[in-house]
């Protein structure tokens, strides 16, 4: 009896620190992911994708989308760090979930993968519109492409597209180039043009259009060409990442395993690019890549080490900041050549690119401008696919004190000479005037 309770206490003592090891500032990769399905058979038909996630250490919790016991939060704490919604035809989410609670989930900095498919419900469309993605209004429309379809398309209506117009970003899609085209079968969406946080990861070719494949076209389709996005991504201002895909089959085992040959091209690939594409994209969306952290800004005069409380105009100063990138397991030094610092007061007086050393320290030195006031050191870094860095530190700048001006100005030597000559002349004159004969 005593042994049992003691061993239980010991085990729980070991488990407790592990339980607190989840999504946090020091470890940004998500851990606990809720997967909402509208059909539990998706667990097996998309097993390659889910097993890939599990092998990378994610705890997947599979639930039906209309399960009445669904909850994202309990007593104000979020139970999950990431959400995958593979439930395109669900009208209403169960439990306490609705589109507002999902929007709040993303607002809290957590990540979302949302996939629509043919017959996407209004709920899914609503969630996508919140993120700046508009699905085609016609619910029976699919993306059709008569020049970029896959030759293995059985239906013959050219809805299985082989897309290779990927975004050029090593952060989002990994360093290895995705050679084979990505197979896609689903609905089209376009991006809200006023939204500058959302961008396309996989876009359709210029010959694609969105229409109902089984009926004749009565009027020209609204969504055509490269305006159609197949998979888009949004990085919110709080660095939450959302992936919105128009096809659930993109993630399925069937399309992952199948070979692909684009119509009109000679290249035949044994395996489509789907597995590499969805794996790299899931690494990005769950913060295993492209997540930056900055240390505090450090500045001081050249030759000193302490940070002064105030600078004088035309001082020489050195500035540095440390930036680290999360590699999935640890913080690695970030290396880039486009981080800039501004010396800002209503507008940047100085804008300099920081030079990086291999240990993640970015530094530069410059002269304080000839303007006095309260300035800010600002580092605003927004690179596609990386978290945005927005750092600032305020510092006042004073003008010269009365004894800090230049003492003897060479241009003024004639004036100095004139004054002294006049004084000498006065002296000589007074002698001559008094003692002349």
């Amino acid at each position, binding site marked *: 009896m005593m042994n049992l309770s003691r061993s239980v206490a010991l085990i729980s003592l070991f488990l407790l620190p592990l339980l607190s090891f989840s999504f946090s500032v020091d470890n940004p990769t998500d851990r606990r992911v809720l997967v909402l399905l509208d059909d539990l058979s998706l667990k097996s038909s998309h097993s390659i994708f889910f097993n890939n996630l599990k092998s990378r250490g994610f705890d997947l919790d599979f639930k039906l989308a209309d399960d009445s016991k669904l909850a994202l939060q309990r007593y104000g704490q979020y139970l999950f760090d990431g959400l995958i919604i593979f439930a395109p035809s669900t009208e209403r989410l169960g439990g306490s979930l609705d589109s507002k609670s999902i929007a709040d989930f993303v607002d809290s900095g957590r990540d979302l993968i949302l996939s629509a498919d043919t017959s996407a419900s209004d709920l899914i469309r609503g969630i996508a519109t919140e993120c700046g993605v508009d699905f085609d209004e016609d619910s029976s429309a699919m993306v059709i492409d008569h020049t970029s379809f896959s030759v293995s398309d059985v239906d013959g209506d050219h809805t299985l597209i082989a897309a290779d117009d990927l975004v050029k970003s090593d952060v989002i899609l990994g360093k290895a180039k995705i050679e084979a085209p990505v197979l896609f079968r689903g609905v089209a969406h376009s991006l809200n043009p006023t939204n500058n946080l959302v961008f396309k990861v996989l876009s359709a070719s210029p010959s694609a259009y969105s229409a109902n494949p089984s009926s004749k076209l009565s009027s020209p389709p609204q969504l055509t060409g490269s305006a159609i996005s197949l998979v888009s991504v949004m990085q919110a201002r709080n660095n939450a990442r959302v992936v919105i895909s128009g096809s659930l089959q993109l993630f399925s085992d069937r399309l992952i395993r199948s070979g692909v040959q684009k119509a009109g091209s000679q290249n035949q690939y044994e395996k489509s690019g789907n597995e590499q594409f969805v794996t790299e994209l899931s690494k990005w969306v769950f913060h295993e890549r492209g997540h930056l952290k900055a240390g505090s800004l450090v500045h001081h005069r050249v030759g000193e080490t302490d940070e002064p409380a105030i600078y004088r105009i035309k001082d020489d100063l050195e500035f540095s900041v440390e930036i680290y990138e999360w590699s999935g397991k640890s913080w690695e030094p970030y290396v880039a050549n486009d981080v800039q610092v501004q010396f800002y007061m209503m507008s940047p007086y100085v804008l300099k690119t920081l030079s990086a050393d291999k240990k993640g320290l970015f530094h530069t030195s410059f002269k304080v401008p000839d303007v006095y006031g309260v300035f800010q050191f600002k580092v605003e870094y927004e690179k596609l696919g990386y978290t945005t860095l927005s750092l600032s530190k305020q510092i006042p700048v004073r003008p010269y004190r009365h004894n800090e001006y230049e003492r003897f100005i060479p241009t003024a030597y004639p004036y100095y000479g*004139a004054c002294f000559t006049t*004084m000498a*002349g006065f002296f000589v004159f007074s002698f001559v005037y008094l003692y*002349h004969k």
Partner: protein
Amino acid sequence: MVKSTTKDAQDLFHSLRSTYVATPTNLKIIDLYVCFAVFTALIQVAYMALVGSFPFNSFLSGVLSCIGTAVLAVCLRIQVNKENKEFKDLAPERAFADFVLCNLVLHLVIINFLG
């Protein structure tokens, strides 16, 4: 007509010159001093026109010292001149003492303003 004007100018010049020779020596010394001060001021103005007015207070201080001392010398000349009825009762030593003190104050000020 032209000839008469040139002759008039020459006559004017000659009469000026002859009268000037007759002035006492001490007045001529004061006149020389004034010319020297004004000449120095003109050199400084020409220099400023060339180079620009960067240390403007130095320029002002230099020009002021020359013009100020010239003005004080002119005052001295007025007070010391025996033909001047107004200052008949003023001793020339008193005038010279005033001149020296004012010049001392002037030079103190311009050295301070020279920057």
